[in-house]
């Protein structure tokens, strides 16, 4: 390369930047990798010092995560040989599987509440953002500021009032209650982000659709929505990550029916001693939906976080 370019970085700076990015990625991925590895360790390997990087993998953690177990007499164990591979794992500790654990249920709660509140936030947020972007609304700026102001304190600051309110309304420990709560927290972010994206879409597209014989609402969902897909996808990721990972309200407001995975996973520790592999297994499975969701929408997210700056 003999020519010098102002905009194209030199090979050396490309190498430098690449190395930095890889280093950073490695550092951020170490805890993740650690959790995933711990999920496949035996309890002894999990707490060994110095930490083991090479070990014999076992599914013990996963079995413990999904089951409840009881200790049995040697006579019982001898009379009932193990029938499945997971029974065998449990037998090593002279135990039998008594039944499934609550993890599946709690995980399902997380899915229902996380995706439910994300859907609701996006649905309401898109409509509100479109209205703010396209219509003349009296006091629109004040309203937008008011919507944003709900984010100006940490949500947990209103935990006690919400706790009391929910008890009165019968929303404590219900799916609906948690969906409404997370939607309430997310909606201001959704409205603001989506308004930015919809503002970027030229009005002419909708006008063209109106001229082509569509109604205002048809123009909205046939022309505006596909254009806003990028914004909707990245907003959805932000909303889902918040609702999925939320811990404090979940601890406070749910205990049974609607308990999500985050408050449940730590309770594993208390059941059968410090069962770190089971905790790690729970955390690993818990990570998967957000990871898959993000990877699926990755293309949109990368374009979305630049806030429309590189459209067209």
């Amino acid at each position, binding site marked *: 390369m003999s020519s010098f370019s102002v905009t194209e970085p030199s090979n050396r700076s490309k190498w430098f930047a690449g190395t930095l990015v890889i280093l950073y990625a490695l550092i951020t991925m170490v805890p993740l990798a650690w959790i995933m590895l711990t999920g496949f360790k035996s309890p002894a390997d999990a707490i060994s010092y110095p930490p083991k990087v090479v070990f014999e993998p076992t599914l013990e953690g996963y079995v413990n995560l999904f089951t409840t177990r009881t200790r049995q007499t040697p006579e019982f164990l001898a009379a009932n040989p193990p029938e499945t591979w997971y029974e065998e794992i449990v037998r090593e500790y002279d135990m039998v599987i008594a039944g499934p654990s609550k993890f599946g249920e709690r995980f399902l709660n997380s899915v229902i509440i996380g995706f439910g509140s994300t859907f609701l936030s996006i649905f309401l947020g898109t409509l509100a953002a479109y209205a703010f972007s396209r219509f003349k609304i009296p006091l629109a700026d004040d309203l937008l500021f008011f919507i944003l102001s709900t984010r100006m304190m940490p949500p947990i600051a209103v935990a006690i009032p919400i706790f009391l309110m929910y008890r009165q309304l019968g929303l404590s420990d219900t799916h609906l209650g948690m969906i409404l709560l997370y939607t309430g927290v997310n909606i201001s972010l959704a409205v603001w982000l989506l308004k930015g994206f919809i503002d970027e879409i*030229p009005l*002419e*597209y909708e*006008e*063209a*659709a*109106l*001229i*082509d*014989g*569509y*109604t205002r609402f*048809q123009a909205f969902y046939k*022309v505006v929505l*596909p*254009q806003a897909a990028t914004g909707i996808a990245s907003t959805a990721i932000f909303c889902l990550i918040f609702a999925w990972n939320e811990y404090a309200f979940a601890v406070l407001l749910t205990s049974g029916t609607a308990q999500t995975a985050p408050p449940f996973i730590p309770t594993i520790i208390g059941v059968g001693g410090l069962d770190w592999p089971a905790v790690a297994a729970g955390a690993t499975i818990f990570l998967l939906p957000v990871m898959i969701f993000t990877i699926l929408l990755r293309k949109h997210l990368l374009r979305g976080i630049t806030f429309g700056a590189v459209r067209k």
Partner: protein
Amino acid sequence: MAQIEIKNIRKDFGAFNAVKESSFTIEDGEFFMLLGPSGCGKTTTLRMIAGLELPTSGEIYLDGEEISQLPPSQRDIAFVFQMFALYPHLNVRKNLSYPLVSQGMPRAQVRAKVEEVANILGITDILNRGVGGLSGGDRQRVALGRAIVRDPKAFMMDEPLGALDAEFREHMSEELRALHDRMKATTVYVTHDQLEAMQMGDKIVVMNNAVVEQFGTPQEIYDKPATMFVADFIGSPSMNFLPFAGKVAEGAQAIEMHGTSFGVPRQQQGSDGRLVFGVRPEHVMLSDSGAYRGEVLASEYLGTTQIITLDTPNGELKARIDSGQVATVGEKVGLGFDARRITLFDESNGQALRSDLNQGVLAHG
């Protein structure tokens, strides 16, 4: 196809008055130009006809039916946007089918119609391409296609050539005019380019400051301007204005300016005070003799003709004369004007004085 009649239409945006009571008629099959400088209300007028804006007051008749408050989807009017506004998430074929799908047309029929229009516009080869990678000209053709595919009663075009580069614009304006001649569709075309308006239009409306200044054929507008604004806006170089103080009697066929008498078309309106003598550059004659003289300041060679800038007792003047005629800078020459083509204006309001030349035209204004 249809006749469009605009009656006393007005549009206010809050306190801002975008279009003042305006009236004109667009005849069936006409290529009608809305011409004016930016911000004059021409695009607002176009959008009101299409239904993208609702008029504050006044009526719009499409083939006798009052449509001014109908939503655009119920007007059967197509619109070509300046930036084309092709749906970026759809390919060319889908862009073209969109207006037909909304009418619930059967799929086979949509397909046939789209192919037909693509044939007319010569874009069959790009039907399955996305609109993102198209050249300016192809985008323009797709935008036109989307307008003509559903055989609307009328076309609205908002500076459709504005986004193209100069070279291609010429070509596209010919293509557009040819397409119009073939389809005989009533077309309303907004432009700020007077040359484009003169070249393509059957009729022109000249707007300025929310007001219709004049309405007529290109020839009428050029030869018989109703106001000083129109006289100045149309033509390159524009009409010369020589202000003078004087008196014009009704029926007069000459006026006196700087002690010299000049012939003018027979005046039907008397006036007194500050007047303006309006003459097109090509109606100025240079001669060695003549009582009214001017000094040559500059000459601009244009091939067959040349533009001479002169300093006269009544201000600067441009003359378009044959290239063969010699005019040396610094030289003093005698000036004569074609008496049949003179327009006198009242300087106070910019209006043309009625004369035998422009009598029929001013009635519109």
